[in-house]
């Protein structure tokens, strides 16, 4: 390889860097390094003049490699790669030394900081000398999308995509569409009927020529990578159970949640006390239009208990988000159905964050609901009332706002059961290759900036499979996911970043140690050649395989051993 021509550009970042680091000294030290043609300092390298300075130097000195010593690469790597591209350099022939976040901002001792900045710059220079020009790849994008789950999220996403003019396969495990929402009567806070929300969508999905609905079906395997997946689905829809495989480009995971099993909290007596019901059982009462105890009387006293399974140490730490408003809905519905019934509402904190929810809460209290606050991690205890008492059950609890230990009369108790990850979530996560958090919810690629994508390209999550959510948020997510996919399809072919792992076949011995290590199953074993190889498009460049390959046959592009070791040498020489 011919001696590289490296340009080093040191940023003062106003005075952010230069007030601690002697940038001039760094420049002089850089000039004497092997391959360095020119070294310059500037006030703001990221500014337009700064970037033009780089371009000019590239032309003037015929530089073929660039080092910028400035802020964190997480801040401006993109910017400077752009500058390099503009100057006709391959963006990967560029390296950054982080002398702001990890130097000038954390060190006060000028000589020491300058020494460190010099070392970091040297490391970057040594490394860039071994960088290689990299080019991305492209692959085709299959327009079909697989939607997992026929709840409100799945239905919405499917419609959105189908309206966009692309084929959708909607796979639903159960025998009907609608999901959990189909079990709900009215929805808070505007009290519109869940049935109305659903039926319209379901019929549209059923009729839509772009949508294939498969009930009684589940995904069995998913192979390939974004734009080029192959799904194997086992279905009992229609005639005899059969397994079918088809190609697709993207997946929307909308598998929803399951309700918390109330019997796990023994002192609520659910399943033993006849008039203790879960929110879903109560929804059934509401839909039948009869709010009554098991022996058919209207309740004189009703009690609603929040956070059943949520926000507690022994079950789930998180908030299930929809129960508070639903509870208020129940309070109002009971009041209007049985006006002389006294409703008490046992909550930990009233979470009324949504649009229109605070007013809803106020209305709840105006309906003369008795709000009682109980402590996190301590549960009310429900027991049968002594004979001759004017109520069925007594609920005992330490009331937080009064500091009193109190006893509440109740003929009917509604448990607001929280949401939890479905029993099959781990299986699904494994199938489509996405991760779960400690509670089993699917993890988004970025909690704030990329909430519907996952770390696996082409796999999107929507609705309550990602975390508890109310209907508006769920629908919003479903549409967002669909939108992302439509945009992806519209772009036609997919570009694949130049940074990925590749197997050097002349070195691969086919030991297959790397095969199991890839979190994205991007490594395939060719049993013909007895060699492993990496599907570039599926690779995320974590480099696990490269570090593990015992014969150094796997190369992590842009993070090769040579490049990293050159950095080590640079830091320490």
């Amino acid at each position, binding site marked *: 390889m011919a001696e590289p021509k490296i340009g080093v550009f040191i940023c003062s970042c106003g005075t952010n860097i230069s007030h601690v680091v002697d940038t001039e000294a760094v420049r002089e030290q850089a000039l004497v390094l092997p391959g360095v043609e020119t070294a310059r300092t500037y006030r703001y390298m990221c500014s337009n003049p700064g970037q033009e300075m780089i371009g000019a130097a590239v032309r003037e000195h015929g530089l073929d490699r660039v080092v910028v010593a400035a802020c964190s690469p997480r801040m401006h790597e993109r910017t400077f790669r752009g500058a390099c591209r503009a100057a006709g350099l391959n963006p990967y022939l560029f390296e950054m030394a982080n002398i702001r976040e990890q130097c000038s901002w954390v060190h006060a001792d000028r000589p020491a900081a300058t020494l460190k900045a010099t070392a970091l710059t040297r490391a970057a220079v040594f490394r860039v000398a071994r960088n290689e020009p990299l080019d991305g790849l492209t692959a085709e994008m299959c327009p079909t999308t697989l939607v997992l789950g026929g709840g409100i999220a799945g239905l919405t996403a499917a419609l959105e995509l189908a309206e966009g003019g692309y084929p959708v396969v909607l796979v639903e495990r159960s025998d009907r569409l609608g999901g959990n929402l189909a079990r709900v009567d009215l929805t808070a806070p505007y009290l519109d009927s869940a049935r109305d929300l659903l039926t319209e969508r379901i019929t549209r999905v059923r009729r839509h020529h772009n949508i294939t609905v498969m009930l009684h079906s589940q995904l069995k395997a998913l192979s390939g990578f974004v734009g080029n997946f192959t799904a194997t689905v086992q279905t009992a829809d229609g005639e005899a159970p059969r397994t079918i495989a088809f190609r697709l480009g993207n997946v929307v995971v909308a598998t929803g949640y399951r309700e918390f099993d109330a019997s796990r909290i023994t002192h609520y007596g659910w399943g033993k006390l006849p008039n203790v019901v879960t929110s879903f059982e109560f929804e059934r009462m509401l839909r039948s239009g009869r709010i009554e105890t098991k022996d058919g009387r209207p309740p004189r006293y009703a009690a609603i208990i929040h956070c059943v399974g949520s926000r507690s140490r022994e079950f789930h730490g998180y908030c299930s988000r929809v129960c508070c408003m639903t509870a208020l809905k129940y309070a109002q519905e009971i009041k209007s159905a049985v006006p002389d019934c006294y409703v008490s509402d046992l909550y930990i904190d009233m979470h009324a964050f949504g649009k229109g929810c605070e007013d809803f809460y106020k209305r709840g209290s105006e309906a003369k609901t008795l709000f009682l606050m109980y402590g996190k991690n301590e549960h009310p205890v429900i027991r049968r009332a002594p004979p001759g008492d004017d109520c069925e059950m007594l609920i005992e609890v330490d009331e937080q706002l009064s500091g009193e230990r109190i006893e509440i009369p109740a003929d009917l108790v509604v448990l607001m059961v929280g949401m939890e990850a479905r029993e099959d979530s781990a299986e699904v996560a494994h199938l489509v290759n996405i991760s779960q958090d400690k509670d089993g919810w699917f993890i988004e690629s970025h909690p704030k900036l990329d909430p519907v994508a996952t770390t696996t390209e082409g796999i999107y999550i929507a609705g309550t499979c990602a975390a508890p959510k109310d209907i508006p948020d769920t629908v919003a997510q479903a549409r967002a996911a669909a939108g992302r996919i439509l945009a992806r399809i519209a772009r036609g072919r997919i570009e694949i970043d130049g940074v990925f792992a590749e197997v050097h076949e002349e070195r691969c011995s086919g030991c297959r140690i790397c095969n199991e290590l890839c979190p994205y199953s991007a490594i395939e074993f060719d049993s013909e050649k*007895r060699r492993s190889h990496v599907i570039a498009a599926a690779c995320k460049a974590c480099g696990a395989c490269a570090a593990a390959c015992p014969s150094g*046959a796997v190369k992590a592009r842009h993070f090769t051993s040579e490049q990293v070791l050159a950095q080590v040498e640079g830091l320490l020489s």
Partner: protein
Amino acid sequence: MNARKLQVALYWGAACGGCDVAVLDTDEFVLDLAQAADIRFWPIAVDGKYSDLEAMADGELDLALFNGAVRNSENEQVAKLLRAKSRILVAFGSCAHLGGIPGLANLTSKDDILATVYLGNPSLEPGNQTLPQPRTAVNGGALEIPTFYRRVYRLSDVVDVDYFVPGCPPAPAQVKAVLLAVVGGQLPPRRSVLGAGERALCDECPRAKSEKKVKRFYRPHQVVQDPQRCLLEQGILCMGPATRSGCGVRCPNSNQGCRGCYGPPPDVRDQGARFLSALASIVDSKDPTEIEEILAGLPDFASFAYRFSVPASSLQRSHRP
């Protein structure tokens, strides 16, 4: 090929002698060798003195095969002589190549070794505290013995080496190949490894391989092994994946894990560290304590992973800046 016979020297440094035996193991080929070459110096086989060697002109020899590591001043002296006298110096066998078994001594210290052998040894007569000295005055005259070095070196640590022939010992076929190559004058670029493959051992290993996950490691005697299946997958240690091929899969074919005598594959810097990384990666657990337990099944792992390559390890080889 010119009439002039090939001028050859063989030497045995800090080693077991197996490499010399390997040369002899080429059977009648040794005789052909004798036909084709003048064996100018070969302590194990032909009589000769260092002075003869010193007497030679620089470059007078065509080929010198140096087996064994450099452990003391004598080894180094001869190494330097052979380097000077020979056009081609070959580090022959694992010890010369990587330090080999003697190299394991570098995991302890010279003082410990001397103490164990000369001071703590139960077979010593009580009170005898004698330690070997380079020079000892004996009635008027003085006796000299080579200085025992602080550590063991690869041949390439003390002299410039032209070619490396790995193996403990190198396979006879390989020995032939090398000699023929030299005779025929068709040699690869200097400093390359002769007579071995360009991939890891698994490439030649006939055992069936699949995806690997190990929950427990076994010593060979602890488990009934499936002779068809990859040893690592059965939890039996095998350096094969991190070892250069070329030996003919000697150990795995005899139901024994590879020990790594052929050294690291071409692109590997540190055989032991590489193997470590690969092996740990396939441990099938996410729980720190369980991981510790599983790895506890690998006693004295350093000596295993670096059995032949301690002096060649990153931590001990000379780093040319």
